[in-house]
């Protein structure tokens, strides 16, 4: 569609403005994370840029410094106690362990089923696919209450055993991510002509050999994209983590604990929130190409 020059400029400006509008909350969040407390809570007006930037929020949440100690060091008049509660180093470690673990389990379990559903014709294939799809539709809340009981029974509540607690969360995240990973990888397998493995099998390869030596290497990109999406969904999950854990805190749950009875620690919330966005941003830019396919469970290709 050809546009006249003024119209083209109008379109460029509108596009830039709309994008900026959508970026504004992220920008504002990052800005808040470097504001001193007096600039966040200003009853008279919203403070934009007239403040002295500080890294105190990052120092407290990401490096475990004590805020009151820092306040004394910097000669600021805001000595508030409660350093450990805001130290989020363990939270970030927990989140990474769980997200990486869940992603690994999901991919390992899903890749085989995806291959079989793409390549083999057997009775019950449609039902299996519907089961997977149904799993995607199931609201996690529906299984939550029994899950807590089951986890307690198996000693998988993190108050009983922290390592089993990790495994418990990994497995339930793996279940939640399974449909996306499975259907997405199936769509990548579907893209590879069947002749490829048939040729390998005519040459005497078993199914397993044609899968592991021939087809799997051809869908590396698809597997990587699925893994990235699984990681992002595990990293951002909130409900299951909120209900199933007490000692282990993933980032989205931890950040809620900064809401205190004496006032919300917006500076710390903003710092941890900004830090939590960065890994997601990097990962998602890596898989831009397959994003639409992933978000639509493999049904739309770009």
């Amino acid at each position: 569609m050809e546009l006249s020059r003024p119209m083209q400029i109008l379109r460029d400006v509108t596009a830039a403005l709309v994008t900026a509008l959508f970026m504004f909350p992220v920008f504002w969040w990052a800005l808040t994370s470097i504001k001193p407390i007096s600039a966040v809570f200003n009853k008279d007006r919203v403070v934009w840029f007239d403040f002295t930037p500080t890294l105190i929020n990052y120092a407290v949440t990401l490096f475990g410094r004590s805020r009151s100690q820092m306040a004394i060091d910097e000669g600021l008049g805001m000595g508030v106690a409660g350093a450990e509660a805001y130290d989020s180093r363990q939270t970030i470690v927990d989140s990474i362990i769980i997200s990486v673990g869940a992603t690994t389990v999901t991919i390992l379990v899903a890749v085989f089923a995806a291959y079989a559903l793409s390549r083999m014709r057997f009775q019950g294939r449609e039902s299996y696919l519907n089961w997977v799809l149904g799993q995607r539709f199931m609201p996690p809340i529906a299984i939550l209450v029994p899950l807590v009981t089951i986890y307690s029974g198996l000693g998988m509540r993190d108050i009983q055993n922290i390592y089993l607690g990790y495994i418990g969360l990994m497995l339930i995240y793996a279940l939640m991510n399974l449909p996306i990973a499975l259907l997405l990888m199936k769509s990548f397998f579907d893209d590879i002509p069947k002749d490829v493995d048939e040729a390998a099998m005519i040459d005497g390869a078993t199914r397993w050999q044609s899968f592991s030596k021939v087809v799997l290497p051809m869908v590396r990109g698809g597997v990587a994209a699925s893994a990235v999406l699984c990681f992002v969904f595990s990293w951002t999950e909130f409900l299951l983590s909120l209900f199933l854990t007490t000692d282990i805190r993933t980032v989205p749950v931890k950040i809620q604990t900064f809401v205190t009875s004496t006032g919300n620690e917006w500076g710390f919330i903003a710092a941890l929130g900004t830090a939590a966005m960065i890994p997601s941003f990097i990962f998602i830019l890596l898989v831009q190409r397959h994003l639409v396919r992933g978000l639509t469970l493999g049904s739309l290709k770009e």
Partner: protein
Amino acid sequence: MSVAVATRAPWLPRFITSEHPLPWLLPAAALMTVFGIYPLISAFISTLYRKNAATRKLIFDPDYNWVKVFGDERMWNALMNTLIYTSVALVFQLVLGMLIALLLDSDRKGYGFMRALMTLPLVIPPAVTAMMFLMMLNGSFGVIAQGIIWTGLLPDNFSILGDASTALPGVLLAEIWQWTPFMVLIMLAGLRSLPKEPFEAAAIDGATNVQAFFKLTLPMMSKVIAIAVLIRGIDLLRAFDYVKVMTDSGPGTATETLTSYSGRIYFGNADFPYASTIALLTLILVIITSTVFMKAFKVKL
């Protein structure tokens, strides 16, 4: 060339070799059974019990919870909120998503960068987004709230999330901001896959851009739109994160959705059978709406 012999040991039954689908499908099926089907069944069984509030004992009473739930005004309120939340968010996300996709669908310099930026909100943890909007909607120092107050639409220090009439729109703002990019991305993919010829023909016949959009673009995009609405709709029906963090279903029950109501029972009076009943009702709602939708619009994922 030598022909490799199949390496299967002869005493193995065929169904545990890689030629048979079973070993391939089993791990995923096991995960879905142990952590999906089994808890689902036990959730259903638990709804057949009544929890005695005083003794905390469970008494077998199969229709107690299911009769109770349909006479529960709070459930109807939560259902209404869920449906309003879902439909308002869907309409906004779909219309905005389409408009922004049309705007950004260009090969000119800079548009690729803007499209990449647009995907970023999608990967922020929703619970973090909710906190972000909680701060920005704060009546005394929130940048969005101050902006609205400045225009004179709301009185000074007005708490958007604390007022029953504006709390749901406030929560929806976060929802719409985060997930409109989802629609943008899908619509862009749809727009880019459209064939060029019909549009060239229409232009020769003197059709305007608006005509071309309604007569050509929309019909050709119907499948893409249906898939996007289905996927988004399912997630919206089980909305939890924004409501939990921003208003905790309040004020009162003004923003209570089915999922958050279930969570409130769970954390509140610990009536697990009833919490499960509400949760299963959400599942039934999702199944019915998605099945009807898929049949009506002939969508297949």
